[in-house]
């Protein structure tokens, strides 16, 4: 009980931060060295390219990338120490795009210099991006070692490009440079998902990811256009100042209010939310470090960053934030349900990432940027941990990741640490009370449940139910794979990277299956795992600090001093069922988590057949037959998209191609070509060589002319 009372205390010092204006950015040319945070990864990308050109067969690219990432992490820390939560600073690096025309009242200018906007939000994001990035790079250096000669440089080149683009995106001072980073990150994810280029599924997944991102990017580009048309600037500093001066006299009816929705579209595209989320599970085709770094921790949070950064814009339309909340909530629920029915461990973690991202957008939507920000922070760590443990398992079991074929890994020699760290990750994911995730998810749900709006309350309850589902599917994976009797089957590919000789590998491999023995991860994987595990626990520190030592929650203070300050205030909701919002969410949340774990334990460890029996029962009864079918087939979303978009487009293209080839080209162009020939053939029979034929033509011609002449002459004076 003790814990509950403490929770109650935490909500009293409500810092009414709503009215505080975003501090004006000051120019800081002295911080030009901050550009190196982007420069270092870019340089490492170039060096990797050089290594590739020289066909190096060593681990040098990994070394270069790790040094570069560590360097940018150190620089970010130095920057943090200098700027901290002070006033935001704008550092101009070089002139990229600028244009001006017109005079007098018609003067219009467009400037997009390559500059950095450093404030608390940027630093907060960069810290965990560069931090996790370097750790995962170290992990990958060993994980990818079997590819040294063949794709190693390409992998680390991709990682460096990704980090450079992510840094550009986060530290951009205007929306166009953000767009540059945005598409750069999309390119990096395309290259890295398609790393195993020999597998057609990987290539298709990469293409799908890039195109879905591109759809989101279009929304973002149009949003930027609209912002520039309405506010005459794309720069954050000036934009916030203009917005501060009160909403502009909206001269276009729907234009300004459309901005938040377009930005939202971009965010959902990049962060794989409801309409555009199907690319993330397919992105698991890429190597596991990529999934961990890009598709779990950093890139997918870009959408959250965008909305947090342009939070003031979201007041332009009354229900902009409500939409974000709704999409977030629904995505969380849908992804959780799908996650329950997947058998591939990485796919489960992918859907759980989508679900947690749904929570973050729910947080943003309901107005708690602090909750969302904190959840991003905690989620980045424990999801990276989960993915890396899954990676360690794949690495050891030659690509085997299907939880039906793995069991009792806890007792397999060499995998003891991995299993326990996986347990830690699972506990954090299912929001065990007093875990870091519990604090962040609790904040979000409390804000939702405590808000006046009824639909936010509904979303709050939906979030709680999803928390129960999350707990269930997390521990379903853990109990099935890591606990229980030890029996496993090796994966199908000899080593899960280049499959040059896959045809030979499977043949020779079949006989070797009997005496296959998995090899546990070595230091290169163990050390990053341990560090990240520490990070997972440490992520809870801001929460513990606020709870036990009544300190200021660090994340909350960071959010307070950034452009997303509106939602960073202390959350204070109205009473629910007699208890304060805090106490209600914590109680229900804890019970949901424990219930989920209990059910998972009961169906997946004690009596493994129970899950199958339950599934069969569901299938048996015709009313509920659809549930297992839809869940396993991921709500048929892919099929719907295929039917709604890909198929009609494919048919339309063929029709257009046919129309273009036959009508425009065949009929119009070649047709006009054939006209003279046809006319010539028309007069052909006249020249039949017969003397009298010609005589008749001549006589006929003469007679007609004479007749016509005389007729006129006659009419003249007849």
């Amino acid at each position: 009980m003790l814990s509950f009372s403490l929770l109650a205390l935490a909500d009293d010092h409500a810092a009414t931060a709503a009215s505080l204006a975003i501090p004006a950015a000051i120019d800081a040319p002295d911080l030009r060295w901050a550009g190196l945070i982007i420069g270092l990864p870019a340089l490492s990308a170039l060096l990797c390219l050089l290594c590739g050109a020289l066909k190096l067969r060593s681990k040098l690219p990994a070394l270069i990338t790790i040094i570069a990432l560590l360097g940018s992490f150190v620089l970010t820390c130095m920057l943090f120490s200098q700027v901290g939560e002070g006033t935001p600073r704008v550092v101009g690096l070089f002139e990229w795009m600028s244009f001006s025309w017109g005079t007098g009242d018609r003067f219009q200018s467009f400037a997009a210099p390559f500059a950095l906007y450093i404030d608390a939000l940027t630093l907060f994001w960069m810290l965990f991006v560069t931090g996790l990035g370097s750790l995962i790079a170290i992990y990958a250096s060993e994980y990818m070692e079997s590819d040294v000669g063949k794709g190693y440089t390409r992998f680390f080149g991709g990682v460096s490009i990704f980090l450079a683009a992510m840094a550009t995106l986060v530290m951009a001072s205007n929306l166009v440079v953000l767009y540059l980073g945005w598409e750069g990150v999309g390119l990096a994810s395309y290259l890295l998902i398609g790393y195993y280029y020999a597998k057609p599924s990987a290539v298709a997944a990469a293409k799908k990811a890039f195109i879905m991102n591109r759809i989101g990017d279009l929304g973002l580009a149009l949003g930027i256009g609209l912002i520039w048309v309405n506010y005459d600037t794309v720069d954050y500093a000036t934009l916030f100042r203009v917005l501060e001066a009160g909403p502009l006299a909206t001269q276009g009816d729907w234009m300004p209010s459309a901005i938040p929705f377009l930005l939202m579209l971009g965010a959902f595209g990049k962060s794989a939310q409801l309409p555009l989320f199907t690319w993330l599970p397919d992105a698991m085709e890429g190597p596991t470090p990529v999934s961990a770094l890009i598709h779990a921790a950093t890139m997918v949070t870009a959408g959250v960053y965008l909305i947090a950064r342009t939070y003031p814009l979201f007041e332009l339309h009354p229900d902009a934030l409500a939409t974000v909340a709704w999409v977030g909530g629904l995505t969380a629920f849908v992804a959780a349900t799908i996650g329950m029915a997947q058998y591939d461990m990485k796919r489960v973690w992918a859907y759980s990432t989508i679900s947690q991202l749904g929570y973050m957008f729910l947080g943003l939507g309901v107005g708690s940027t602090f909750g969302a920000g904190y959840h991003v922070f905690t989620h980045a760590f424990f999801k990276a941990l989960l993915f890396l443990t899954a990676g360690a398992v794949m690495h050891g079991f030659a690509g085997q990741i299907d939880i039906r074929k793995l069991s009792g890994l806890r007792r397999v020699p060499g995998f003891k640490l991995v299993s326990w760290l996986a347990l830690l990750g699972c506990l954090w994911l299912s929001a065990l009370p007093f875990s870091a995730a519990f604090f962040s998810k609790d904040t979000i749900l409390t804000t939702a449940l405590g808000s006046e709006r009824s639909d936010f309350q509904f979303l709050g309850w939906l979030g709680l139910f999803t928390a129960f589902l999350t707990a269930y599917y997390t521990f379903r994976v853990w109990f099935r794979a890591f606990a229980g009797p030890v029996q496993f089957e090796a994966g199908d590919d000899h080593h899960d990277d280049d499959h040059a000789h896959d045809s030979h590998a499977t043949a020779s491999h079949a006989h070797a299956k009997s005496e296959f023995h998995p090899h546990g991860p070595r230091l290169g994987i163990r050390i990053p795992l341990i560090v990240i595990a520490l990070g997972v626990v440490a992520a809870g520190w801001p929460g513990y600090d606020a709870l036990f030592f009544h300190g200021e929650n660090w994340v909350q203070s960071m959010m307070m001093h950034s452009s997303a300050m509106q939602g960073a205030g202390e959350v204070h909701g109205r009473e629910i069922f007699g208890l304060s919002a805090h106490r209600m969410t914590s109680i229900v949340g804890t019970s949901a988590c424990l219930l989920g774990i209990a059910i998972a334990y009961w169906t997946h460890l004690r009596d493994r057949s129970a899950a199958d029996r339950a599934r069969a029962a569901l299938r048996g009864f015709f009313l509920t037959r659809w549930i297992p079918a839809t869940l396993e087939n991921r709500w048929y979303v892919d099929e719907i998209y295929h039917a709604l978009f890909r198929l009609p487009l494919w048919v339309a293209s063929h029709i257009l191609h046919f129309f273009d080839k036959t009508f425009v080209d065949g009929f119009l162009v070649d047709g006009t070509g054939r006209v003279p020939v046809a006319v010539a053939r028309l007069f052909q029979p006249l020249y039949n060589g017969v003397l009298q034929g010609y005589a008749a033509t001549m006589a006929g011609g003469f007679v007609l002319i004479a007749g016509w002449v005389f007729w006129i002459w006659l009419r003249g004076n007849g």
Partner: protein
Amino acid sequence: MDQSAPSDLLSSSTVMLGLVALASAGLVLLMRPGARSLRLAGSVLGLAGVAGLFVEVLKLASGGGGIPPILPVLFGVTAIAGAARVMTHPRPVFAAVYFILVVVASAGLFLLLGADFMAFALIIVYAGAILVTYMFVLMLAQQSPVEGDATANWYDRVPREAVSCVIIGFVMVATLAQVLFNPNEEARRVASSVQGEAQTQAQLWETLAGMPKQLKVITRERLQLAKDAPVQFVAGERSALIQIEGDTRFVVATVDGKDHRVMLTNTDLPVNAQVVGATLVNDFPASIEVAGVILTMALFGAVVLARKQVELGEDERRELAGLSRLSVEPDSGASR
């Protein structure tokens, strides 16, 4: 003849058109190698059309009243009928003979028009010479018809696209008819003929004046002199032989030192042949030469064309060229 009212102008031209159409239809029936009765009907139709045309035209000429003179119609119709037969007759020889009929009929018309010399020249040259050549070539080129098969060979019986040719002909004839036989045209012709008559009168006297020999013959006859008696004329003031006083014309001839005034009357005027000869020589001297050249050219052409292709062997050619014959046979020698 006054300007006839437009209404009947319209009517006469439509009638004429109708008649020409009738004639053409008849001709078509005649041309096609159909049943004999059909071709008879065609000829009847054609003749009716032509006759109607003549009546219409001559009615126009005689100012609408009176019966048209027989002779022109007679000659015209026979000429047209003959021409139709020339064209439609399957046997070329008969066609040639019918052509002679056409020539004679048109000679008749010549006479009616006062061109008697030309009438006979036409018969002599055309019927006599040209048609005879045709007959000759026909005989030459005609395969002898197979016994019993009296019909002409195929290409003579079946004309080419009879209908379209007749249409062409019809359009032309209708146009000519319209042009020639409308009242204004008739009036103009009559007007110029009146003026022409007066002119002819003066022209005849001039031609006579230009014929001293004729005058000598007249004077010898008037003065009952011997055929070869020498006669001298005394020129009038403009050195013209014929002198005019009032409306009488006379010529002064000195015979054996005495002047006699010989009166000339209309009967002394030159006859048509003489007038034609005079105009031919006075007005068209160059044309005669050209005509002569054309005829000689035709002569050479005919000779060259009709040359018999004689294939000369090697020896004949050498011989013609005057070279000795090369030969290896011992006995061939110069015996050839």
